[in-house]
């Protein structure tokens, strides 16, 4: 059978601009992306018209819809030092590896007694860990201690970095420590009030309440 000859045109086209663009975009996304750390609990914050963005350097309290309280603080070193102080106060020993692992961890919602078990859980399994929330009743207010030590370490680190920056004449890029509360919209107000009371008892009165952005009426 004779072959039908098609008019020949070069099937390979110049892909260079496309590749250039693709790599440009890839580079952009790689550089701008900040990975969201896996949280042990899913929280749906209520929406508001506020446009202030979340402070970088903060103590973050997460409150789940069931009213469990989770804690984290920004900064690898600050987290580790905070844990060391807590371990000292509660007389619980942590291995160097556990402290290292804690530095990499995000929010947790377990008591000091269960913390090492939580740290030793695989990161992927932590969501399934039976977190009970950090105890914060008046007789055993571990949350208060976490906040207090975290605040201390956070302030120390801020001061160190600021001094170092000023000594070398660089600009101070780190923000002072702030206190943020990320509560689920369906969380009971009482729990939020308890957390706020824990803060106000420590003479901390200014908070950032995390919300989703929602467009307000005519601005």
């Amino acid at each position: 059978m004779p072959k039908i000859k098609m008019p020949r045109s070069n099937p390979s086209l110049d892909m260079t601009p496309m590749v250039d663009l693709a790599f440009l975009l890839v580079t952009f996304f790689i550089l701008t992306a900040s990975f969201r750390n896996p949280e042990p609990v899913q929280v749906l914050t209520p929406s508001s018209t506020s446009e202030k963005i979340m402070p970088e350097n903060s103590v973050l309290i997460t409150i789940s819809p069931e009213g469990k309280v989770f804690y984290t603080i920004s900064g690898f070193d600050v987290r580790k030092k905070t844990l060391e102080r807590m371990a000292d106060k509660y007389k619980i020993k942590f291995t160097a590896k556990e402290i290292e692992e804690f530095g990499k961890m995000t929010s947790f919602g377990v008591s000091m007694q269960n913390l090492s078990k939580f740290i030793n859980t695989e990161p992927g399994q932590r969501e399934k860990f039976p977190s009970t929330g950090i105890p914060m009743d008046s007789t055993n207010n571990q949350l208060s201690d976490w906040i207090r030590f975290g605040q201390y370490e956070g302030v120390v680190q801020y001061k160190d970095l600021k001094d170092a920056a000023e000594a070398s004449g660089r600009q101070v890029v780190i923000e002072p420590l702030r206190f943020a509360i990320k509560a689920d919209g369906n969380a009971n107000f009482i729990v939020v009030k308890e957390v706020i009371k824990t803060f106000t008892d420590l003479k901390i009165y200014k908070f950032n309440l995390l919300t989703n952005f929602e467009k307000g009426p005519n601005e």
Partner: protein
Amino acid sequence: MAELGEGSGSHAHGKKGPVRAKKQSTRVDMTPMVDLAFLLLTFFVLTSTFSKPKTMEITFPVPPDKNNPPPPMKVNGYTFLLTKDNRVFWYSGEFKDAPKNGLPATTLTEVKFGEDLNKLLLDKNDLVEKAILELKKKRLNKEIEDTTYKRLAVDAKGDPKSPFFVIKADDKAVYRNLIDLIDEFNICNVGKYAVTDIMMSEINLINQATKE
């Protein structure tokens, strides 16, 4: 084997003369690279979240103690009470269990989230609202700078003559209600507000109102 290869090679060339190196195309097949680039691109586009979570800054009042008694609720103030099922009640002025100084005892009025609440707040906060509108107009007409506007707006919101708003919630309210209410305050330019603890007498009134 070698012989065979040589033989077939010479056969293929056929022609005499210097054996030229075969011209190699300078083009590299870029398809796998492009595939990879786009795969990565898709991944990053889908996983990246641009918006950082937004926050609402709020300062809580210092809890009252012996040295620092709670300030008396002024006449020029409104209290909002949050309770279950997203319901909001409000009353104006000081809380009164029984008629006092010729004024009737406090009764609660219900207000719905949304337009009703917005209207109520705009009405009560009329003084500040008008001042802010005036400032906005001036800013639009370039009579004042943005920074001046911000400073004056803060001053206007803190006007001593403007009413004070108090938020209280009972143990059945959810956190979303609190945020919604504060947000509505922000929208309506309410500068003076605080979240405080609820009183037993107020809880009783709410219970009565919700039972009906």
